[in-house]
C-alpha cells in the first residue's frame, strides 16, 4: 500500500505576518485543501510541527487543531527544529502505513516575530551544547561558517562559489510570489556584503520568517477519492549527528544528511541520477553546496564546481531550490520542510508554473535541523 500526498499549502513567508499563529495555520490548511474532495472531519489525525522555544503558546498543537476543526481527532507536536515538518511527514507516513490512520494533516508553522529579536538571539545561543559550547557565544551562522572554512581549506571552494548559490536563489525568487525576498542579487553585491560569521556574509545567510505550511497525506485507496493527482512518498530517511561541534567526525559535510539520503535512496530503489528536481536545506550558501555532495549530486568537494557550472539551474544536470530556497523564501523554522515538500509536489503534479521542470517524475527534499543535527530526506514520485 502506497502512502501519498494529496494536498499541499503554504502562506506567504514574511517578516511580520500580522496575524496569530492559529490564523497563520488556517491559511496554509485552507490552501492545502483547495480543490480536494476532503473536509476537516474526514482527517483522522493532525501533526503540528514547530520549534516551541519560539512560540508564546504552550503546547500549540491543541490550539491549532481546535481552530482548524480537527477535534476530537488526535493531535500532537513534532519537533526537530528546522526539520520539524519533515519529521511530521515521517510520522504521518508511519501512521498510514501501519493502518492506524488513513488521512493525516501535517501542519508546520513558526511566527518568529512573536518574540523579540533579543529573545530570538538568546534562544539561538542555546541551540548549541549549553554546557560546553554555548558559554563561548556560538550561533547558527558560526556553526555553518566553520563548515565553510573547512570546506574551503580541504577542497578549494571559494567565496565566489558560495555567492553563486545566492545569485541562483535570487533569480528564482522572482518567480515565487510566496518568497519573503523577491530580488535578484549580483555576485558583487554578495561579495561586498557585511560579514556575519567569516567567511559567511549577509547574502550567504537565510533570514527568520513568519509562515505556515500544510501537507495532507493519505493512503493510496483514500487518495483516489480525494484528488486525481496524488504524489507518492517512496523514500524516507532520517538520521542524527552530535549536538556538540567537538563530537563531529565530518567538518566538510553533514553526516546526518549522508545517512538520511542513503536510507531514502534505498527505500525508493533509486540513485541520485534518477532525481529530476530537488529542494535542499540552504539555510546558508555552504549548506546547499554540502547538500549537493552529501546527496550524491556530485562527488565530495565538487559542490562549488557544480554551482559554478550552473548545473543546479533549470536545464542543468539537477535543478535545485528553484523556488528560491530558504535564502530567498525565508525560514519559518517549523514550516520550512513543508514548504520544500510543497514545491516538489507542485513540480511532480505539473503545477509549478514558470519554474516547471519538464517531465519531472522523481523529486527529493533534504531538510536539516540545527547545524547538521537532524537530517531528513524525503523522496516523492509522480
Amino acid at each position, binding site marked *: 500500500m502506497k502512502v501519498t500526498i494529496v494536498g499541499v499549502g503554504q502562506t506567504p513567508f514574511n517578516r511580520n505576518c500580522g496575524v496569530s499563529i492559529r490564523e497563520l495555520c488556517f491559511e496554509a490548511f485552507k490552501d492545502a485543501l483547495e480543490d480536494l474532495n476532503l473536509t476537516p472531519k474526514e482527517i483522522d489525525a493532525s501533526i503540528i510541527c514547530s520549534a516551541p522555544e519560539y512560540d508564546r503558546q504552550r503546547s500549540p498543537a491543541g490550539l491549532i487543531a481546535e481552530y482548524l476543526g480537527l477535534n476530537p481527532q488526535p493531535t500532537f507536536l513534532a519537533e526537530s527544529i528546522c526539520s520539524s515538518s519533515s519529521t511530521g511527514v515521517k510520522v504521518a507516513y508511519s501512521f498510514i502505513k501501519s493502518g492506524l490512520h488513513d488521512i493525516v494533516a501535517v501542519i508546520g508553522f513558526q511566527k518568529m516575530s512573536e518574540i523579540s529579536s533579543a529573545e530570538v538571539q538568546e534562544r539561538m*545561543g542555546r541551540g548549541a*551544547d549549553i554546557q560546553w559550547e554555548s*558559554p563561548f*557565544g556560538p550561533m547558527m551562522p558560526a556553526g555553518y561558517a566553520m563548515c565553510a572554512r573547512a570546506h574551503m*581549506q580541504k577542497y578549494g571552494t571559494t567565496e565566489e562559489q558560495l555567492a553563486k548559490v545566492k545569485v541562483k536563489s535570487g533569480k528564482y525568487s522572482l518567480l515565487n510570489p510566496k518568497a519573503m525576498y523577491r530580488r535578484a542579487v549580483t555576485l558583487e553585491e554578495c561579495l561586498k556584503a557585511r560579514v556575519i*560569521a*567569516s567567511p559567511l556574509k549577509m547574502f550567504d545567510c537565510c533570514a527568520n520568517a513568519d509562515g505556515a505550511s500544510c501537507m495532507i497525506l493519505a493512503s493510496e485507496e483514500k487518495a483516489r477519492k480525494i484528488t486525481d493527482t496524488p504524489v507518492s512518498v517512496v523514500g524516507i530517511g532520517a538520521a542524527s549527528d552530535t549536538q556538540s*561541534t567537538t*563530537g563531529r567526525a565530518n567538518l566538510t559535510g553533514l553526516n546526518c544528511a549522508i545517512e538520511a539520503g542513503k536510507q531514502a535512496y534505498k527505500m525508493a530503489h533509486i540513485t541520485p541520477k534518477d532525481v529530476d528536481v530537488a529542494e535542499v536545506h540552504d539555510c546558508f550558501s555552504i549548506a546547499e553546496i554540502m547538500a549537493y555532495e552529501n546527496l550524491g549530486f556530485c562527488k565530495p568537494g565538487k559542490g562549488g564546481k557544480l554551482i559554478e557550472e550552473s548545473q543546479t539551474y533549470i536545464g542543468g544536470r539537477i535543478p535545485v531550490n528553484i523556488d528560491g530556497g530558504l535564502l530567498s523564501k525565508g525560514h519559518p523554522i517549523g514550516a520550512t520542510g513543508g514548504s520544500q515538500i510543497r514545491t516538489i509536489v507542485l513540480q511532480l503534479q505539473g503545477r509549478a508554473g514558470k519554474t516547471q521542470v519538464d517531465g519531472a517524475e522523481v523529486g527529493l527534499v533534504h531538510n536539516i535541523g540545527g547545524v547538521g543535527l537532524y537530517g531528513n530526506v524525503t523522496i516523492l514520485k509522480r
Partner: protein
Amino acid sequence: MSFSKFGKIGYVSETKVADFVKHLEKGKIMATRCRKCGQLYFPPRADCPNDLSTDMTWEELSGRCRLLTYTTAHFAPTGFQKDLPYTLALARCEEGVNVYARLNKDINKNETRIGVDLKLTSLRLPDGRITYEFKKA
C-alpha cells in the same frame, strides 16, 4: 563546587563533572577516561555510553593542539555582544580529542589558518568567572 562559574555565561550549574572547574582554577584542563573501556572524553563525561560504566578517572590534557576550523563572529547571542568580534575555533588535541573555544585576540588574522599549532590554556575572566581559550603555541 558548582559548575556555574564556567564560561562567559553559564547555562548549567549542576553536573557530575563539576570538579572540572576546580581543576581549571588551578590551570589544569582535564578530560575523563573510562576505566572500563579506556576511552578518553573531552568535554569530560561522567558516564560512558560504550559500556554504561560510570567508573571514570580525570586526566590532564597537555594543551598542545592543532586548529581544525574557525570563524570570526560579527553577531552574537544575547549577552555576548560586547565581546564582538570574536573567533570561535575547533582544535584537535594531541591526545585525540577535540576542543571548542575562542581564539585569544592576540593571534592575528594572518596567523589564523587551519593546521596551525595552538596552546589550550585556562582563562580567568575580569568578573572572576573562568574558562579556557586557545593561544599561540
